[in-house]
């Protein structure tokens, strides 16, 4: 009978350690990627700004051209271009688990400030 209790307690100890390891493993596999999504979005907008595409498309209010230019593997993107007045054109995704990156553009060939919002959602 004593052997049974030893075994049961040893199993319980194993379950505690394995449970803890699974929790840590889940955090490790989840957090770096999730934390980096907005960062990836911002870097992508910055890349487009460096290529002058972002300025041009933003001045044309061509949100679909920005959407087509964004390439972040594993994520679906949608773009909104917002005026200082607050009115926006573009697509806002629905649902949860959406990451937002924002880049402010002063204009292309003339002063015309807008806010470019890039929404990223994990592809299913």
């Amino acid at each position: 009978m004593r052997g049974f209790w030893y075994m049961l307690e040893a199993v319980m100890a194993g379950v505690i350690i394995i449970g803890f390891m699974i929790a840590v493993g889940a955090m490790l596999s989840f957090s770096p990627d999730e934390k980096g999504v907005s960062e990836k979005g911002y870097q992508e907008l910055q890349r487009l700004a460096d290529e002058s595409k972002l300025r041009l498309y933003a001045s044309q209010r061509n949100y679909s051209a920005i959407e087509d230019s964004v390439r972040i593997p594993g994520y679906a993107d949608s773009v909104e271009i917002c005026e200082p007045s607050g009115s926006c054109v573009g697509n806002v995704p629905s649902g949860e688990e959406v990451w937002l990156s924002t880049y402010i553009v002063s204009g292309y060939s003339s002063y015309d400030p807008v806010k470019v919002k890039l929404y990223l959602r994990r592809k299913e």
Partner: protein
Amino acid sequence: MRGQYFVIGAIILCFLLFSALPLSFWSGSGKTDDIRYMRENIEREFPHALNLGIVSGSPEATLSDFTEFMRSSLREKFANPGFVWVFSYPSDGGVNVTVANFMGSRIDVSVAVGSDIKNATLDDGTMMREEFSGVPEEFTLTLSFDGEEKSLRWKRDKRNLYMHSVIRRGENAAVFGLEA
């Protein structure tokens, strides 16, 4: 009795591992320190806004408008930004200097070009314009406000901009200067 040591040992081991992990590991999922990106956006976009303002012939109004837009955009991201900028451009052997306050509160400003010093109290969102005459081709402009002081070596016949920026969010803050 001995089997219980396994359970106690497992709990102690988990506790030790838990203690060894940084707090941010458990609390930080989904949060990003995007102040760095706000700063990069400011550093890239303000010189561009200045150029567009110069092209349109109204650099001060353009910068002022863009500063207000940037400030309101950063506030949407729960940041508390503040800006003070000084802009100079040539005028008949001298320079015109404009200082704008977007710190969110009234500040006392002092601008010195050589020994010529001009002082003003600026409400949030307002500017001061001063003309300095008899300025050498290269001059030193000293801007002082709120305990901050910055000396800038500028060329008289050029358009010059310096912007002091502060972005705060909770315990995080970025304070930086931008020259263009």
